[in-house]
């Protein structure tokens, strides 16, 4: 079994395997909508490789972090649709 780490997403705790990407961790925890478009439509990851910017979330206060290119870290504070 992989080492488990925990992170806070919109104030709630989720756990993930160490080494997974933040996007994968969020999807595994049941998050489908990562944000809303400028016309308030729901959006989630599209390209999975750092290009489309659709999976960007706020991490530890920093906006615009591409969750698909970001490995999870213990204690990360994540805000979706910030």
């Amino acid at each position, binding site marked *: 079994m992989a080492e488990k780490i925990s992170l806070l997403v919109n104030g709630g705790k989720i756990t993930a395997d160490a080494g997974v990407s933040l996007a994968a961790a969020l999807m595994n925890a049941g998050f489908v909508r990562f944000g809303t478009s*400028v016309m308030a439509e729901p959006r989630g990851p599209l390209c999975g490789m750092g290009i489309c910017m659709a999976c960007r979330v706020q991490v530890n206060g*920093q*906006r*615009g972090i591409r969750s698909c290119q970001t490995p999870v870290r213990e204690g990360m504070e994540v805000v979706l649709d910030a």
Partner: protein
Amino acid sequence: MSISSGRVIVVGAGIVGAACAWYLMRDGHQVTIVDRAGVGCGATAAGMGHIVVMDDSPAQMALTRYSRQLWNDMAPQLPASAEFVPSGTLWIADDAEEMAAAEKKAALYKSCDVDAVVLSPAELYAREANLRPGLAGALLVPADSVIYSPCAAAWLVNDVCSQGGILIKNAEVKAVRDDCVELRDGRVLQTDISVIASGTSLAELLPQFPVRARKGHLVITDRAPAFVRHQLVELGYLKSAHATEADSVAFNVQPRATGQLLIGSSRQYQMQSAQVDHGILQAMLNRAFYFMPSLKELGAVRAWAGFRAASPDHLPILGPVAGMAGVYVAGGHEGLGITTSLAGGRLIADMLAGRTSAIDPAPYLPARFAAGSGRERWHHG
């Protein structure tokens, strides 16, 4: 001289040409607009879209104040895409000396019937929390605004076309004569009047005018709603930054309707390429960080550079061209082209209609650059 319902060709579909065409259409002229690319693709897209009263000279004050009024009157008609935001301008005072300048400016504005309010540091921070601590205060000019100029130009052009006007895109003008405009593709468009509003390429058609290209850089950020609420400009902009021939930068940050921030500004002369110059970009951003350190962490989406058409006395050139019957010029608006476009178009329409204008058009007439006047040359300082 009064010409009504004549054929008019406007060369240039930037904000200046669009404004001329719009007012001429309203006077009943049959208007054709010709542009070598599309609508608002030149200097119109290279500027911030700040609609602002400026007071470098009484003539500049008169023109910008009049034009701002025209914009504010037009605002309710503008489509959402024009992103008109009545943000006001905050002129930021870095120190006591600049605060004294703010007080003086306030008095001048009030004497010209322009609303202006001096803000204490506390009042300033209540409005703009992301500015660095320790500033001396600011001058608020509440009726200034910001606009997305390419779509404002498109609205004006579309309105002209919906009234029977014609837009010819991707057509380069080769020459302008008294009674016609010749295109590079060989077409000759007959006309009674032509208005040359071709921006930085004015000299290609009318080399007698000392208009030259001034390069400026802009950076746009990711969406960061409410990070900034007013157009912010440093007062140093007036006393030093852009007065000389040397390359210069100034703190100039604008909130867009999208929630993005547009960051300027830079001035360079004698540049050929529109490529981004990293040296001046760094200087410009570091100037912005000096006033607003928290900008550093925001995401930059795009930087770009463009050219504005500058005249030696920083006033636009509006009126008939000597020795060319029926040819008018509307150019040299420099960094204030968005602001002054409407007044410029209105003045040109007044001239063609033989109407008395709301402001005296004399300071902007092309005749001031007649050979031997001495004003056709560029001065330093």
